[in-house]
Each structure stands twice: as C-alpha cells, then as structure tokens.
C-alpha cells in the first residue's frame, strides 16, 4: 500500500517533465521519422500521396546538394575532433602545471565558451576577410603571402577556395570547442592522485612518458566522454557556419557553399521541403548512432577503469 502510494507520487512529480518531453521531443522524433518516408507531404494540409523512400532517393541521388553538405560535415568531424581533443589535452596539462595565476589563465581560456558564437564568427570574418585583414597582414609580414579566405572582392582573387574557407571554419570550430574540453580535462587532471606522478618521477619517467603512459590513460574516461560528445556536436555543426559566412551560408558572394547537414535541414524546412528535411535528419541520426556504437565498442577496450 505504502509502496504503491510512493510510486504514484513519484509519477506525479515526473508528470510535468514527461508531458513536455512527450510533446516537444518524443512526438516530433517519431513524427519526423514518419515524415521522412511520406512522399509529397503537404505541410499545410498534412496529407501525403504514399509511403516510400523517395525522399532519400532525392537527397542521396546523383547531383544532390545534400551529398556536398554531407562531405563538408564529415570533413569538419574528422579534422576538428582529433585536433581539438589533442590540443585541449596539451593546454589542460600545461595549465595544470602552472603554479602562479592558474585561476586567471583558466578564466581566459574559458572565455570563448561564454561568448556568443555569432559574435565570435563576426570577429573571425573581420580577422580573415578582405585585403586589410589582420591575418593576411601577418602572413605578408612572415613572407608567406595572404589569401582570399572568405570570398568577396580582393587582390588575392575574387573567389575563395574550398580549402581556405574550410581552414577558417575549422580554426573557428576548434577554437570555440576548446574551453569546455579544457575544463573537463582540468578537473580530471586535478582528480589524479599526485602520488602517481611522484612514483613516476622516482621511476625515472621522462615528461613525455608521464604524459603518454600515465596522464592520458588515467584521463581516458574524460577523453572518451569528450570524443563522443564532440563527434555528435561536430556532426550537428551549424551556428559556426552562420557566424562566419552569414545566413546565406556562403551561397553567394563568390565563395563556396559551406552548408552542413543541419544547415541543409533548416534550409529545406524554410523551403517547405519537409520530407527531404526529415530524410536528412534521419540520415544524420543514423550516422551519429553508428559512430556512437563504434566508439563504444572501441572504448570498451581502451578505457582503463
């Protein structure tokens, strides 16, 4: 009797969340799955002609823009995730070994996390765009020579290459994703017993050995967590593209279209191509799921405790 009442009140407490989740998360999830397979879906009348895989055939078919966006997204994932994890690890280890002004440095490194990504994107485009941009100025000084990074009219040509646009985008994404990773790794580092390092010192381990044989394995739970979340995050990359290339995402003004999958989904929705948007979402879902399962399979062997 008592148990039953307890259970009842537990469900009662959960009810508001459950209702909200059901309306705004679970239902749309199921619905979008369905809509991905509905052909000629009419958003206004909620009608469709038949159920089939036509939407997928369109977006994955030859000459489809979607494949280009998929390629951009995958490039972002494959390049930015490893770089940002390794970089944040090195910075975290460095920060952890600093004795003075640790708090100040931690604050500085955490700044990008609390700054609006569109604002950062604008700053980046100022830094990179045009003849007089600071990056080109520095490159000229170093004798490397500037580039047309983001398109538009410039002395370096009126078109930016895919590579240079991708470079800027990757720098932006990596830089923006560092603070959270550094924070997680720092707290992980501070949780490691100092005696392991003393033991390693007595065992004549070099700094490099300590990093690779002790710090990284002991941080493996945090590294695995960060790898998973940033894989998923990078597949959903969107706001960085908007921040750098504007709402048109680079479709105009002499630069390449840097749209990502999420960007494509948004654009399709605005064009009322609901079926194609949903099909894109399903493809993204499948990719993320496969990656996550793969990662879980690998990390079961790699995480040490």
């Amino acid at each position: 009797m008592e148990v039953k009442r307890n259970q009842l009140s537990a469900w009662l407490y959960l009810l508001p969340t459950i209702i909200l989740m059901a309306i705004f998360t679970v239902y749309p999830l199921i619905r979008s799955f369905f809509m991905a397979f509905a052909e000629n879906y009419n958003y206004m009348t909620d009608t469709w002609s038949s159920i089939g895989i036509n939407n997928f055939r369109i977006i994955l078919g030859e000459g489809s823009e979607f494949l280009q966006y998929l390629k951009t997204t995958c490039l972002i994932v494959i390049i930015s995730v490893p770089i940002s994890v390794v970089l944040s690890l090195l910075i975290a280890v460095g920060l952890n070994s600093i004795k003075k002004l640790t708090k100040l440095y931690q604050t500085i490194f955490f700044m990008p996390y609390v700054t609006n990504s569109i604002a950062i994107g604008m700053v980046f485009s100022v830094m990179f765009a045009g003849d007089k941009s600071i990056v080109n100025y520095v490159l000229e000084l170093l004798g490397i020579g500037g580039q047309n990074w983001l398109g538009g009219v410039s002395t370096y040509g009126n078109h930016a290459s895919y590579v240079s646009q991708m470079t800027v985008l990757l720098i932006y994404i990596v830089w923006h994703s560092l603070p959270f990773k550094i924070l997680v790794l720092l707290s992980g580092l501070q949780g490691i017993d100092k005696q392991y390092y003393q033991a390693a010192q007595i065992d004549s381990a070099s700094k490099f050995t300590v990093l690779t044989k002790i710090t990284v394995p002991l941080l493996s739970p945090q590294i695995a967590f960060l790898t998973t979340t940033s894989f998923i995050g990078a597949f959903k990359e969107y706001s960085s593209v908007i921040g750098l290339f504007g709402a048109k995402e680079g479709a105009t003004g002499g630069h390449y279209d840097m749209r990502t999958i999420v960007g494509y989904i948004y654009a399709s929705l605005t064009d009322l191509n609901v079926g194609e948007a949903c099909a894109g979402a399903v493809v993204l879902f499948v990719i993320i799921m496969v990656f996550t399962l793969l990662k879980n399979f690998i990390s079961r062997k790699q995480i040490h405790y």
Partner: protein
Amino acid sequence: MDIKIVHLTKVFADKDQAEVRAVDDLDIVIPSGKLIGLLGPSGCGKSTTLYMIAGLLSPTDGQIYFGDDDVTKLSPEKRGIGLVFQNYALYPHMTVKQNILFPLQNLKVPKVEALERAQKVADLVDIGSLMDRKPRQLSGGQQQRVAIARALVKEPDVLLLDEPLSNLDARLRLQTREEIKRIQRETGITTVFVTHDQEEAMSISDEIVVMKLGVVQQQGKPQDVYNNPVNKFVAKFLGTPPINMFNAEIVDGKVMIGEEAIAEVPFENQEVEVGIRPEGFEVVDGADSGAFSFVVEQIEFIGRDKSIVARHPNCQTASFRFIIDADIQGVEVGKTIRANVKPNKRYIFHKVTEKNMELSSPEELEVVEQVEELGE
C-alpha cells in the same frame, strides 16, 4: 651504503604564513644494510624526513649523504632509491608486470633482461603468478608486494617505505611485516620505513629512531630503546600495554610514591615522575613485605598471563595496568596487594625536563631547568 643526515630542517609555511618546523635540526646515521624504523606520532616529521631522503621534498636546511655523496640537491630519479607509497600508488591501468617493468623501461633496460629481472623480483615477493592481473584485482597485501617489487626491480641502493602496513588488516599486517624483514634480509638493501605503530617498528627494525615534533628523541636497537628510554615521551610511546606513570618525590635518596619507598637513587630531594613498565611488578605474599601497595580493580586472563587493572592515588591515570604470571595466587578484586618494583623496569623522570634522570648527566638536567626558569 649508509645514509647520513646532517642538520636536516624542513620549514613549511601554513595558510597564515606562520612557519611550521616539520623537521628540526635532524641528525641521524642510518647504517648500511640495516632496516631502520622512523617512529613517532602523526605530525612528528617522520614522513617529511622520508620524502626528503627520497628527494620529493627539498630540505630548508641541512644535508643528506648517501655514502660519501652529498645528494641533498639531487633529483629523486638520480638518487638510486626505491619508494613504496603508503597507498602503493600502483598505476591502475597497467598490469602487475607492466607496473614492475615501468622503471626498467624508463632506464632503457633491454627487453629480455627487463622481463627476467621483473620475474625474479616478483618471485622474491611471491607474486610471480599474478603478473597479468590489474592492481584492482589484487588484495591489499598483494598490491603492497607489487609496490615493493616495483621499488626493488631497479636494484636501488636504498629502499624507502612510507607506512607500509597501515592499509592492511591486522592479520595481514603481522604476515607482511615478517615478509618485509625477510625481503630486506635477502636483498641486504639499506631500508628506511616510517610508522606510527611502535609494535610494528620494534618487531622488525634493526634500529628505531623515535621522533617527536620534528626532533629526534632517541635512536638505537629496539630493545635498548625500550629498556633505557631517555625521556618520558619515549617511555610512554613504546610498549603495550603502555607504561604506568606515577607522581613521586625523592626524599633522602628514596623514591617515594605516596608513603612508600619503591627505590633508592642518588638524587637531591625533589618532585619527580616515575614510570613503571607493566611487566615491572613482582607481587609478593604477606601484608608487610613488598614495597608498593595498591587496590586491585579488575583481573583479565590473557592465556599465559594475567592482566591486572589496579588503582593508586598517585597514579597519573584513573587506573593502571600490569601483567603477572597466571599462576600467581592471592590476587583478588577489591583486595589490597603488595608488590616489589623491578629496578630495571622503572624509570625516574625529571619533573621539568622529563628526562630519564639515571641516564642524564647533572648538567643536562640543570641547563634546561635554567632556561625554563628564565622563561617564567
């Protein structure tokens, strides 16, 4: 190789920038090939001393010599030491074998030789069959052996152990301390270990160093230190059950506890404290023989011996405890009994300096007394 510690001092600054002298002008010599126990209550600076010998802490002042070499400024990896941490600090992600091999890999020992040495040292500490386990799959005692193996595998000149038995249960502790003694004897390596457990230190050390508040109180063979404590602190710190302390007075060369003279000493009249070891009482029959009388409060049989809890008005604690042979008759609860005090089991301590008066020169007792008076 012997270790010489000269004027070693370590000062820590605490939060309020006040100085704490963890180790104060320490002078000890650790003889080659011996097992030495650094003994003292927590906060006496024994671990700090060990970490300075290891090189993980740098001394504020003083020198450390390994043989004839001054190693004071040498970094830990260059000192040729093995250190076993209190909680072992085994690398959790490595197997036993990888843990033991780790120091050798860093020293670039060829793989075949390294494996051979690792197996040899693992067999020495009796974990040769556990090489592929991870530390968390081992019991506390096994983990400790791995830690010792890891410390020994690079064949160091000095082995340092920080509270080696504190993480083990009572039975394992007995077993492991014999094991440590055996390993030390087989390798003949100069070994220093730190402990707050006097029984542990006494049972396996060749020599013990008793410390208090960063200052060495006494160094010597365990039995010597136990039998001839230089001061009240050492006397009280060693022995279970602990020594019994009485307020006493010297009158005309006689040590008086209350109305009874328990010993004769060549000192002037003064108040003193008397310590009597639990095994220092000789119960005698009859109401008039025997120097010392007291009321029996409780009797406990502990196999071969009887442990007697008794009461005396001059005792510094509510009751005191001593041990007599179980065969002795006539001891009953509530009865007043008489006993002689064995002369080698009782110590007379100076009231102010707390030094063992029979082991101190008159100057030693005087000088400190004057300082004490100036302070007042």
